[in-house]
């Protein structure tokens, strides 16, 4: 797969996940906790994809890549922790 095609696939996936989290997970049939935590789980994945594919950290030195990948997990986890303890 070319780099361009890979970027196209990632963009389509990001758009589809956004539609799911914005409109489907917000339906009243979905429990608030499930919807909110699911939304931040997907947000974490989206942030990681932007870092690795759009910002090209997939090809960065391991330490640099790890630092930003940790943030993509840590920031949503912090939000989720506040949410669950409130």
């Amino acid at each position, binding site marked *: 797969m070319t*780099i*361009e095609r890979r*970027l*196209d696939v*990632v*963009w389509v996936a*990001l*758009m589809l996940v*956004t*539609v799911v*989290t*914005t*409109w489907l*997970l*917000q339906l009243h049939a979905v429990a*608030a906790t499930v*919807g*909110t935590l699911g*939304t*931040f789980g997907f*947000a974490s994945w*989206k*942030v990681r994809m*932007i*870092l690795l*594919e*759009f*910002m*090209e*950290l997939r*090809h*960065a*030195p*391991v330490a*640099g890549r790890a*630092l*930003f990948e940790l*943030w*993509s997990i*840590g*920031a*949503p986890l*912090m*939000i989720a922790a*506040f*949410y669950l*303890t*409130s």
Partner: protein
Amino acid sequence: MTATTTRTVEAVRRMPGVEGFWVLIAGDLGVFTLLFGSFMAARSDKLAEFEQARHALDVTHGGLNTLLLLTSSWCVARALQSARQGDAAALRWLQFGIAGGVAFAASKVVEYAVEVHAGHTPTSGDFFMYYFAVTGIHLFHVLVGCVVLSVFLSRWRSRGIATQLAGFESAACFWHMVDLLWVLIFPLLYLTR
């Protein structure tokens, strides 16, 4: 993977753009992380107030803005790939990317106008204080990004596409950071129920 292959891969591994620029990106992410934590702590203290105020926001508007910014980010990523190949399509991709940013900013201004017209201002309560502060700082980043990308578009037109690629890599990474910050800001303010 052989030892030689491993060494070759390690030799080409690099942070895109100007390396020092990544300190700025890390710092920006750190500041926004503090804002996110501060917002969630305030929300914990005033759950009912925050939940009621959240319902005043237009989720569809926020969702469309997210799709707009993701598309703009993708266009800038494609612009960089085209520029590396000296392909004139880089100009078109970059124009679309900037147009996406301008459309996001215009959409945000419309959203602010609607909220203010409905009586929601930064002094309306903690939720709207955070809403205007977080989205306002983010909007400032969007505007800075639009200006920087426009400067590169102008230079590419006058001096050729392949000029200052390292600088453009940094500008593109800044733009993608603006995008990924919104990916967290949107659910934080609009979707946390």
